[in-house]
């Protein structure tokens, strides 16, 4: 057979073989949708059912679910990206000619979670105080920078016709309103929400996570980039 192909001599025999193959390929179709993010303990074994949603005929579904996709090891680090090509490769190796239809994301990000780390209280208090004092100082600098004091005195004079070096009647509500405005913007009244929509901060967190994921998908996945000197 190889001899014939090498010499560009196709024997009449092959047409019959191709016909048989086509019948086999169309027999079973499975559908796979990779999950976006999966968490796993260190040194865990990733099975196909962990990394993806599967639709397949009852006969092969249990075996398919328990198919081992990846064995985590120390060298893998925190994040492993499993490419769908890899998964399809393993499925066809094990189950032979299945037709694999893939839907959705082309890879799964495996996040290796050691033990759920608690927040260290002193560290947290430090950051809280940092933000507290930092905001207080920033605001005072801002007020000084835009001459807020003289503007407020002017407003006081416009309204009442009198002059007051410390128009506290304006300044105290202003200060409280400042905090209220921030809360309003982030849609949090301590833990209670004003309405159901996600706050801009939650959207921002989500976008940030998506950016991180995209970076990881491209940089941790060896298959997604090919450099000149790679062999």
């Amino acid at each position, binding site marked *: 057979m190889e001899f014939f192909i090498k010499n560009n001599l196709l024997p009449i025999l092959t047409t019959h073989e191709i016909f048989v193959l086509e019948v086999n390929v169309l027999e079973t179709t499975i559908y796979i949708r990779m999950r976006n993010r999966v968490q796993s303990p260190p040194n865990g074994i990733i099975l196909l059912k962990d990394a993806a949603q599967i639709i397949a005929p009852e006969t092969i579904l249990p075996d398919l679910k328990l198919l081992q996709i990846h064995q985590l090891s120390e060298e893998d680090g925190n994040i492993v990206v499993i490419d769908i090509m890899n998964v399809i490769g393993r499925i066809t190796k094990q189950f032979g000619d299945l037709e694999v239809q893939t839907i959705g994301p082309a890879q799964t990000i495996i996040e290796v979670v050691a033990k759920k780390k608690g927040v260290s209280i002193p560290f947290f208090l430090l950051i809280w105080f940092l933000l507290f004092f930092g905001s*207080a100082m920033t605001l005072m600098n801002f007020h000084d920078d835009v001459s807020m004091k003289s503007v407020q005195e002017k407003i006081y004079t416009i309204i009442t016709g009198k002059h007051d070096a410390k128009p506290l009647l304006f300044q105290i509500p202003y200060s409280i309103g400042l905090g209220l405005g921030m809360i309003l913007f982030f849609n949090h009244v301590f833990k209670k929400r004003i309405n159901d929509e996600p706050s801009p901060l939650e959207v921002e967190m989500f976008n940030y996570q998506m950016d991180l994921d995209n970076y990881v998908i491209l940089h941790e996945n060896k298959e997604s980039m090919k450099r000149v000197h790679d062999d």
Partner: protein
Amino acid sequence: MTIKILAVIFVGLASGLAVGAGFVAFLTVLGVIPRLTQLSKTMKMIHHYEWGVVFGALTGVCASLRDPELGISAFVLVPLGLTGGVFVGMLAAGLTEALNVFPILAKRINLDGKIVILIMAMVFGKIFGSIFQWIFFVHH
């Protein structure tokens, strides 16, 4: 003479245009008005809000250029101060959000679920700083 007057009018108009456009652009970038309409579900009224901003800016211009005196009760200042404060607070929050401070900070210290506490640190810091400045700091 007329040329001089026309030139002054032109320069005044041009600088007003630049400042006004800059102010509106700044508001747009920080997204304060969309945020307010989203919270109050009054998207249809957005054009009225635009006019609110324009008339507010013009009132400010009149007040700062002409020095009027109304001579009414000082307690009118309480709602004025409160609304002014809310506006500045929202500007500050919008700026913080635009600079992406919180997501990065919260991720670094494993505090994904409790950013509220960090926001509260900034809120109380702002209130404290502001009150401290007006009551004690201005003396020195």
